């Protein structure tokens, strides 16, 4: 299969995630994109680990922490979205521009 394949997959995932972050109007869809990006990074890390230093254990731990962080991130992000909805009445990111100018 090769290291390259994994790298390509993770790059594609990262790209799709970035696209989602930059383009979607719905805040939750943006968060989904962020998740995708994090997972793509994890996948990338794992690919490098498996093909280059499979005997090591630390990278696995790192990835696990990364997954945990992603989860925490998603939780907090959803909490923020809730508050935004409460304040602005909408979760469309292009309507939330109080910091304009």
């Amino acid at each position, binding site marked *: 299969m*090769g*290291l*390259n394949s994994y*790298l390509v997959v993770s790059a594609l995932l990262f790209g799709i995630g*970035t696209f989602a*972050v*930059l*383009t979607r109007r719905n805040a939750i869809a*943006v968060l989904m994109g962020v998740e995708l990006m994090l997972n793509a990074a994890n996948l990338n890390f794992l690919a490098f680990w*498996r*093909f*280059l*230093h*499979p*005997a*090591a*254990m*630390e990278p696995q731990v790192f990835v696990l922490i990364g997954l945990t962080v992603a989860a925490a991130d998603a939780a907090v992000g959803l909490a923020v979205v809730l508050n935004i909805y409460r304040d602005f009445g909408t979760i469309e*990111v*292009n309507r*939330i*521009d*109080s*910091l*304009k*100018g």
Partner: protein
Amino acid sequence: MHSLPLWLIPIAPLLAAALAGVLALTRRGERAAPALTIAAIALSGLVALGAVPDRPHPLAGTIEATWLSLPGGFQIPLGVHIDPLAWTMIAVICTVSLLVQVYSIGYMRGENGYARYFAYLGLFTASMLGLVVASNLFQLYVCWELVGICSYLLIGFWWSKPSAAKAAKKAFVVTRFGDVGFLLGVLLLVSAAGSFRFDAVTQFVQRIARGELASVPLVSAPVFLTLAPLLLFCGAIGKSAQFPLHVWLPDAMEGPTPVSALIHAATMVAAGVYMVARLLPIFAASPVAMETVLIIGSVTALIAATIALTQNDIKKVMAYSTVSQLGYMMLGLGAGSQGAGIFHLVTHAMFKALLFLTAGSVIHALHAAADPNDLRAMGGLFRRMRGTAVTCGIGVLALAGVPGLSGFWSKDAILGAALANGSPVALAALTVAIIVAALTAFYATRMWMLAFAGEPRSEAAAHAHESPLVMTLPLWILAILSLALGGWLQAGGRFTAFLTGTASAESAPIWLTGLASAAALGGIALAWLLYRAPQTASDPVTRAPGYALFAHLWYVEAFWNAVGARGTLAVGRAVAWFDRHVVDATVDRVGRACKASGQELRRETNGQVQTYAATLMAAVVVVVVIFTLYDRGAAPAQTNPPPIPPVIADARLKPAARMQSPQMRAKTPVALPIPVPSPSVPEGSSNGSNLRNNWGGETQASAYTLFAAHGNGERGDR
């Protein structure tokens, strides 16, 4: 007298002027001011009297102190140098200044600024004396400018009158314009000669003229010989009101009449003549320069004389007459005769001051008139102001050059010098001089006739009365001098011998004298005939050929207004346009560019998170690209996973090297693996190169192998 120091000559009037200036601030001390300045002048005169150069005197000669000593060996001296030329000038200045100040006591009585007037006069006298006793070019130039300042102050004495203020400004600016050339000439001479002193400079020029020095810094020797005197002459053109810079002198008549008598007839305008006379060896080294002096002198004499014919203001007639006579003096100097030029300076000082003071007497008597200067409103004053009329008549006859009076002798000397020179330019100048003599006689007589003869043409003239003694006494003194001085000086060539040490008498041959006298007498006769009858019709002079040109001042004023005044303003406007539209615009544009770029950049912060995220991603891409391009140690990607390395048997860690099953754990003691950093291989470094070095699968004795062994062991166990 003999024990008084020479430096008192310029300093005494200066101190008196300073004191008078202080008195001007008080109210009651004002009347004492003239006493101070007159006493100072008398003192200067006495000191000078004791320093007559032909008598041995311990203090005559030069006394000098070093004023400034510049690095590089340049000395700027400050000194008093008395030689025949300087002594003559001192005599003239002291006499005329003394008489004018006595006269002014009466003329300026009751005027505002009485003490200020005498302070200025004292300052002027001090500066003029400093000028003529100067031993070096620096002091000469400084005093030159000082007399210019005093002229400005005195012309603009009644500064609240706009025409007077304008005239003062004009005088200063025009003479300053000439002084640019003068300064350049001084600098050229001094930088080449290495010293400011007159004797050093003239000797230097004479050495170049003789061919002893081939080259001079900055310019070649022949150019230097011509350029230096021409530049110096620029100053004389300005100060001595030669064509084309004569335009300030008629306007300077705005000042009080005694000022006109002192400054603009006798002394300040003579400074240029004195300078040329003093530096005549420098001029004589260049035929071009001498010819220039001749030509400009004669042109000035002619133009001014024709203009004087057309004037109706008594002081303007005298002003143009002064310009014309100064041209005569330059003519004499340009012909090569220092004696003739200075002789005419002396006699001219006497009779022109006399004429101005009599004009002042008339103006003072007609003070009630609308324009007291206007000749057309005078007439019949002979009966009412006998003394003034007689002395004025003597002055007119002297100016015209009637045989026997002082003007005759000095003009004769000039004509003789021009004839003796013999060059074509000099002979042309001689012809012009004779024509000018006729014109001079005519306009002077016309002035006298219009003022004193006939019947009064206005109320003020009908009620005129003679001036007080304090004013008429100087008139009589000057009249006696105008009558006698010329003859006395010329007798036996006394003056020339005194001045130059040679005994040659510079008089013209008898036929030339006769011709000039005939011209003068003819002019007087014509004017007498034309103006004898009461003036009912228009002035006969208006029917003269060329009257329009003369009355328009040969358009010289118009020329200077267009070129000098309007030209400078146009240049100023162009520069102002450049400043506003190029310089300021650039600054404005920079500011506006900053503002515009700020506005553009402002659009970037639109408050939307996705925009910021996009910017972030772009930056990340750029960074990655940079890293990719500049990181050349890329290792090839691996297609197959490397084999799992075997268990490393580490003797130190052996007992605890295996993760044991509960059974095994019970059997063997547990020693917790302590990661021991291996000294040979750096551990824990995040340096990518280290990792890359290990891509070949090289293992290291580290804790990682420990766990690998565990894993393997575990797998192996299972």
